[in-house]
């Protein structure tokens, strides 16, 4: 235990700085988004308020998750680490994805960049990772790697690894949410509700199983005391339920409104607010 405290002290400044950098980035994203919306409104085009609210909630939750005090505390307390995981990997991505930032960019950017962006969205690589099954693997598979291998321990020893893991959690969360919601940002390929529901079914089951496995068998390495791990595993279980219920509600709410096979640049009409 002793060596870990020394490591924490060494990482203190680095953690604080990376947290501050993340918050600044979130602020920039929020400002850019709001400017985009204002620009559209001025041009007489509509942008659903629900999307703005969803996006701002998303960046807000990420900023809370990345705030230096929580960062520091989460290093030592597994429950707070779990809270971060719920915020950064599940709840914030739902807000960010429902905010449809790519739709906003597509309407705002010059034509040349729009073409490039849509080319990127149509690229084979994005098409591959945006398949619900691959997104599921990257998202929940990453969690299995994190909690069942020495990666969790290693993350506490290396600031770079710590940063990479958290960036992965956020990006994989967004990718998964976007993929199973089938939008509202344009997706490379539409997938049936049945396939997407089956993916969410496996995701919930795998998340539930992982939380119980953590509760039952603990984490590799001895970073946290057992009672903290048990409490954290329960936070993961019940917090995950809340996030997954919201995701399911968004999926069903969007279903009616999603236009059929379609026009790539046409937005799925809003209503996808949580």
């Amino acid at each position, binding site marked *: 235990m002793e060596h870990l405290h020394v490591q924490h002290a060494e990482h203190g400044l680095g953690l604080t700085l990376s947290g501050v950098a993340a918050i600044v980035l979130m602020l920039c994203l929020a400002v850019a988004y709001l400017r985009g919306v204002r620009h559209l409104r001025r041009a007489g085009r509509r942008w659903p308020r629900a999307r703005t609210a969803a996006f701002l909630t998303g960046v807000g939750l990420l900023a809370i998750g990345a705030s230096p005090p929580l960062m520091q505390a989460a290093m030592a307390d597994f429950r707070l680490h779990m809270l971060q995981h719920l915020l950064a990997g599940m709840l914030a991505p739902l807000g960010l994805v429902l905010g449809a930032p790519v739709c906003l960019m597509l309407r705002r950017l010059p034509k040349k960049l729009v073409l490039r962006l849509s080319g990127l969205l149509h690229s084979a690589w994005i098409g591959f990772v945006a398949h619900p099954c691959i997104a599921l693997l990257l998202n929940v598979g990453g969690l299995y790697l994190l909690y069942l291998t020495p990666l969790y321990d290693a993350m506490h020893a290396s600031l770079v690894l710590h940063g990479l893991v958290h960036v992965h959690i956020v990006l994989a969360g967004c990718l998964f949410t976007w993929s199973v919601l089938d939008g509202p940002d344009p997706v490379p390929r539409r997938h049936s509700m049945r396939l997407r*529901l089956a993916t*969410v*079914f*496996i*995701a*919930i*089951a*795998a*998340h*539930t*199983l992982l939380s*119980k*496995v953590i*509760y*039952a068998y603990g984490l590799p390495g001895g970073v946290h005391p057992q009672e903290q791990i048990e409490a954290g595993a*329960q936070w993961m*279980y019940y917090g995950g*339920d809340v996030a*997954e*219920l919201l995701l*399911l*509600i968004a*999926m*069903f*709410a969007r*279903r*009616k409104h999603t236009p059929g096979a379609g026009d790539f640049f046409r937005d799925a009409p809003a209503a996808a607010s949580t």
Partner: protein
Amino acid sequence: MTATGERREATARWAGPVHADLRRSLQAGALIGIALMAGVDEIIFHQVLGWHHFYDRATPAIGLMTDGLLHAAELIALVAGFFLLAELRQRQAFDRARARAAFFLGAGGFQLFDGIVDHKLLRLHQIRYVDNLLPYDIAWNLSALIMLGIGLWLLARARKPQPGL
């Protein structure tokens, strides 16, 4: 009278709204019944009473995995059931009598499944951690059978042609 008219009249003599979607009304009721019972289990027995344990150190690995799958199915049933209900009501195709019957069948079916498969076969957790578990198991499964009975009775009643229509 046209063929459609006759059929429509025949449907009207049958219980429920003229264009009732009987199959989906049953589905909606069953999904909500299952999800509600699962919610009662989670809220009352796990959280309020604290009788059930999150994990009781006797659960085999296969039990944990099945538990995950069941839990996922419950969450999806909850959301799907309510959206199906809303959709049926919106297009005035909701058959209340059948949905009510299916609700009890779903709730009772889940309770019985929970009592036999989850508690006994998979040994996920027990109803309460006491010396003599038998009365608890009997009460649990009996309540399931009562709900199933109510469901079957309601279904039989819903199927009977309503007099005066």
